[in-house]
């Protein structure tokens, strides 16, 4: 029984990381109506930047803050330079841009920092807590994720800017009519998504180690989480991310073994698409054909 609780708790801890990355995916999805395949690589690139800052002797939380800020700027720049020109283009063009961005960032990481696997420090250490139920890194990253999610919630729910960003996601035409600069809101959304992704990258790197492909698996879990919760529901994405974390850990321990854990993400994706394509909290889309 203690083993199961251990799996559930560490599932919630990694699930938090999936939840934040899933939230980033959903934010971009709401703005562009496409899944940003480069979300993981953007986070990896940010994590490498933190790695460089840490090597240069920066204190952890200073490197953390600089990385999150830099990621925001990177996200805004990607929207302005790469996405703005293809805003009206067909779906496949956007998919092409996302995949191109993924390859560029992936290759750039390898080119600048090489492809060898590097250890990445955790600010929380790896001590065993609560009688071996959870590690200090898991507990610490869980707390950081909760704080991030809370901040994001407060921002969207209670600030004027957050309301304007939600308005743009729902109805860009009407948003323009009340004087909202829709382009600026989209850029801001990309910046926020990149920042949230960077936090996820920084917290997962001590677990999976740093290499240019470190987010491949994580992104797949996050995608499963976003889909499970509903691609158009930020709350659903967070819920889905946590659920997938628990499913991954418990299923990996008792069902398929750690080697086949990633299969569980694919199973979740397949199950959602077959049983309830709109996800747990998403809205079903009806269209006349």
């Amino acid at each position, binding site marked *: 029984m203690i083993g199961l609780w251990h799996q559930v708790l560490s599932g919630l801890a990694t699930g938090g990381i999936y939840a934040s990355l899933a939230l980033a995916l959903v934010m971009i999805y709401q703005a562009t109506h496409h899944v940003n395949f480069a979300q993981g690589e953007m986070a990896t690139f940010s994590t490498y930047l933190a790695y460089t800052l840490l090597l240069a002797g920066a204190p952890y939380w200073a490197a953390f803050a600089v990385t999150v800020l830099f990621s925001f700027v990177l996200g805004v720049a990607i929207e302005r330079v790469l996405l703005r020109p293809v805003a009206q283009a067909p779906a496949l063009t956007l998919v092409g841009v996302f995949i191109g961005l993924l390859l560029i960032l992936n290759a750039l990481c390898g080119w600048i920092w090489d492809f060898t696997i590097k250890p990445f420090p955790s600010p929380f250490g790896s001590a065993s807590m609560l009688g071996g139920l959870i590690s200090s890194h898991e507990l610490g990253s869980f707390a950081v994720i909760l704080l991030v999610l809370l901040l994001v919630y407060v921002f969207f729910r209670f600030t004027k800017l957050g*309301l304007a960003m*939600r308005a743009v996601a*729902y*109805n860009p035409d*009407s*948003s*323009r009519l*009340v004087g909202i*600069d*829709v382009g600026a809101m989209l850029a801001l959304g990309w910046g926020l998504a990149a920042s949230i992704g960077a936090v996820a990258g920084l917290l997962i790197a001590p677990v999976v180690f740093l290499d240019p492909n470190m987010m491949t698996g994580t992104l797949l879990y996050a995608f499963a989480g976003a889909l499970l919760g509903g691609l158009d529901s930020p709350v659903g994405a967070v819920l889905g991310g946590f659920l997938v974390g628990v499913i991954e850990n418990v299923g990996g321990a008792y069902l398929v073994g750690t080697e086949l854990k990633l299969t569980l993400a694919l199973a979740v994706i397949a199950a959602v698409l077959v049983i309830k394509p709109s996800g747990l909290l998403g809205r079903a889309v009806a269209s006349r054909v």
Partner: protein
Amino acid sequence: MTALLAVSGLRASYGPIEVLHGIDLCVAEGGITALLGANGAGKTTTLRAIMGAVRTMGEIRFAGEQIARLRTDQVARRGIALVPDGRGTFRELTVEENLRLGAYTRPPAELSAAVDRVFGYFPNLRERYRQQAGTLSGGEQQMLAIARALLMQPRLLVLDEPSFGLAPLIVREIFDIMRRVHEAEGVSILLVEQNATLALDLADQGYLLETGRMVMGGPAADLRADAAIRRSYLGY
């Protein structure tokens, strides 16, 4: 009487198809101008052109400033509030959030007083304050759309077929409210309507648009008296 909005030689096209072939239109400061025409005449396109939402050639002056090259949100910030056809409600958001979005360009300190003032015209919106806007009736959504536009404190209020799809009683109520708003707020109004009787009753100036060309324009009383308009648009 000075012109608040002066459109001249306006052409607009969707792709290669030109739908407005050089129209002139004037809205007087403090006046109500009705723009009439059949389906497909280009009424909505005219409004979209003024708001900078379609490609145009020609001149659009608002309070003396050329606005033809501005983005929609910039036009809105200059003081033109459009209530679009289909009302443009943020259906997923609450009535309160819709109204807060209307006041987006204004200082937050003014918000509650401004909302109270708007509730004076639309008392039933007050009861629906926390409700999701998509659950309102058609008439209430039209009222919400006008309320949202009024919260922008516009110099020019532009309405695209406010009577569309509503019961005659609701339509009369909305037109009564618009008359009161015009008198109390001193806002100029440009009204696009298929219901020519209603529109010409409210307006002091009128225009008739036919397939992208302005075929008539002048005092609303003249349009009401015109034999051709009577036959085609007023039905007597």
